[in-house]
């Protein structure tokens, strides 16, 4: 150790859309975090994101005791001591926040996952979406320009809906055509956006049964809390959301880093 920095453990989650870093201290408390676009250079984006998170924690690179990477670009993180899958990391991160038997729904930029964890934090099963963007963040990213709205405005617009427009298609590309049809029919944008949210929820719920307590994580959830409210209403029970839903995978990776260090 150098510079008198306190020890920290880091998790780097290089997703298809965003790179996330979580830094935790010896008490497993988040002390620094950051999110950047993954872009086309995963090594560069992970370096940049790590620097931002370390700056927030007020420490330097030397403070890192161990670093685990996860996500699509996990092999591109040069500083990583080891890698773990995003499924393992989301499970670990969510169980840390909610130490109970849980069913985790993670809605990412490219993938959706439903992960079941028992009361000891062990994974029982998991499902990932097929080779298809339906119900993922990429789906909403595709739809926003069709509606000529910034993606950030979707949550607010959906809340304004008075008469939701339901969309039937399984397919992102066909859904885009359906959206154009609704525009042609004169449907209101907030009503279409709410319909898009419902489409995301339906695609995710059909992946697996929901047992025990339900937790939702991921960037889509982080930026669209209204989507969680809609999902709660649909399944008829409360859904838990971690404090930093977009960073749950990175948190799990940081926790793995700490576990490995103590082994």
């Amino acid at each position, binding site marked *: 150790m150098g510079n008198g920095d306190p020890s920290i453990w880091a998790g780097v989650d290089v997703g298809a859309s965003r790179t996330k870093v979580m830094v935790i201290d010896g008490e497993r408390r988040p002390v620094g975090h950051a999110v950047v676009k993954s872009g086309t250079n995963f090594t560069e984006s992970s370096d940049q994101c790590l620097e931002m998170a370390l700056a927030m924690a007020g420490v330097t690179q030397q403070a890192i005791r161990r670093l685990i990477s996860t996500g*699509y670009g996990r*092999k591109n993180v040069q500083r990583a001591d080891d890698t*773990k*899958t*995003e*499924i*393992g990391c989301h499970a670990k991160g969510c169980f840390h926040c909610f130490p109970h038997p849980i069913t985790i729904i993670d809605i990412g930029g490219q*993938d959706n996952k439903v992960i079941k964890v028992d009361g000891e934090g*062990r*994974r*029982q*099963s*998991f499902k*990932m979406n*097929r*080779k298809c963007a339906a119900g993922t963040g990429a789906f909403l990213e595709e739809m926003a320009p069709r509606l000529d709205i910034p993606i950030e405005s979707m949550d607010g617009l959906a809340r304004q809906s008075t008469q939701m427009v339901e969309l039937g298609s399984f397919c992102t590309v066909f859904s885009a055509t359906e959206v154009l049809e609704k525009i042609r029919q004169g449907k209101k944008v907030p009503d279409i956006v709410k319909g898009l949210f419902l489409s995301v929820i339906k695609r995710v719920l059909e992946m697996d049964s929901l047992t025990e307590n339900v937790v939702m994580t991921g960037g889509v959830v982080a930026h669209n809390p209204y989507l969680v409210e809609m999902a709660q209403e649909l399944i008829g029970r409360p859904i838990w959301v971690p404090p930093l839903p977009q960073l749950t995978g990175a948190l799990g990776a940081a926790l793995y880093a700490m576990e490995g260090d103590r082994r």
Partner: protein
Amino acid sequence: MAEEKLALPKIQAAGMMKQYMSDYFYELNEAATTKKQKIAWCTSVGPAEILRALGFLVHFPENHGAMLGATRMATDMIPEANAIGYSPDICSYLTADVGAYLKGVTPLSKAYPGIDSVPKPDVLVYNTNQCRDVQDWFMWYGREFKVPVVGIHTHRGVGDVRGEHTASIARQMEALIRPLEEISGKRFDMDEMKHVLALSRECSELWKKVLDTAAAVPSPITFFDGTIHMGPAVVLRGTQRAVDYYKMLLAELEKRIQDKVAAVPGEKFRLYWEGMPVWGRLRDHSMLFSSHQTNVLASTYCNSWIFSDFDPAEPFESMARAYTKLFIVRSDEAKEKYIKDMIAFFKVDGIIYHDAKTCPNNSNCRYGMPQRLEKETGVPSLIINGDLNDLRLISDEQTKTNVEAFIEQLEERK
């Protein structure tokens, strides 16, 4: 990546298999060129024994389909068949094979210099025990080559294989004799039939013993080895060469067991593969699993060429029984019992189901079977989406993440 550096022990018998397979393809090519011997095309689990007894040399289009997949030619051929009307959603063996024919190419040319095309058939003989696609596939070639097409229509969803099942199949087999005699120009000889069937049975027994060596801990063989070494059981059963080959392979694997040589060094997890292989990703998948010290060591697929019911004393009835006991034509209950037996016999920690987009007949994960089996046995499973031949239907990254996450899950349970 770590998996690319991994060196797995090589099976020495492979050299002999390559020689036998080479002899087989050159013999077919010679016959097709000189017209000295008649050629029959046969489905992979069709009545090859009857054809051999009648002196036909036998070409197996499904084997050619697998070669198109393994050489990664298939994906470029499939659109050719699509363009004449075959859907991209049907069997990609069919579309790849028909596409290759339309394009005038074959992987045989590269592997065996001097062979320009698959051998032209004098007759095509199918058995729908694989699927109905094989019938359509053969009918198309029948029209193309203007040669007869005959076949056997099997029962499907069979629970217990009963006398009435086998009697009707045996009758259909016997009914093939007369038209095939006319095409071959040779009288059917029951003694020859019994001789061929005895060789097929011996091949089958040896192949079963080869696959059963995977029950040893550590396993001396992988599923990926099996997909390659099953070649003689598919195309040479009913010949002495197939028998000779499996004797040699079995001896090598038994020596491995004795010396505790693991096919996957440091074997930590043992998995069962249910469904078709992804032919164009055999090496990648082999490396992916073995880099995590995980051996996919057994499968329903490779076991599909075990015909323990063959009996030269009652050729037609026993062939009918063996070809109807095939996993693929059985009821879900029979399939589930079979897989449960395999889980116990091979001592596996988990099951990989390959949901092959264009092969519903070989994808047993679409109607809740994995969930039922997991509940009954406690053995976890993973479904990977892919295809036997069409690489456009595969996301390598998603497969990799799924497999790695599954192995992480197994580690947590240990």
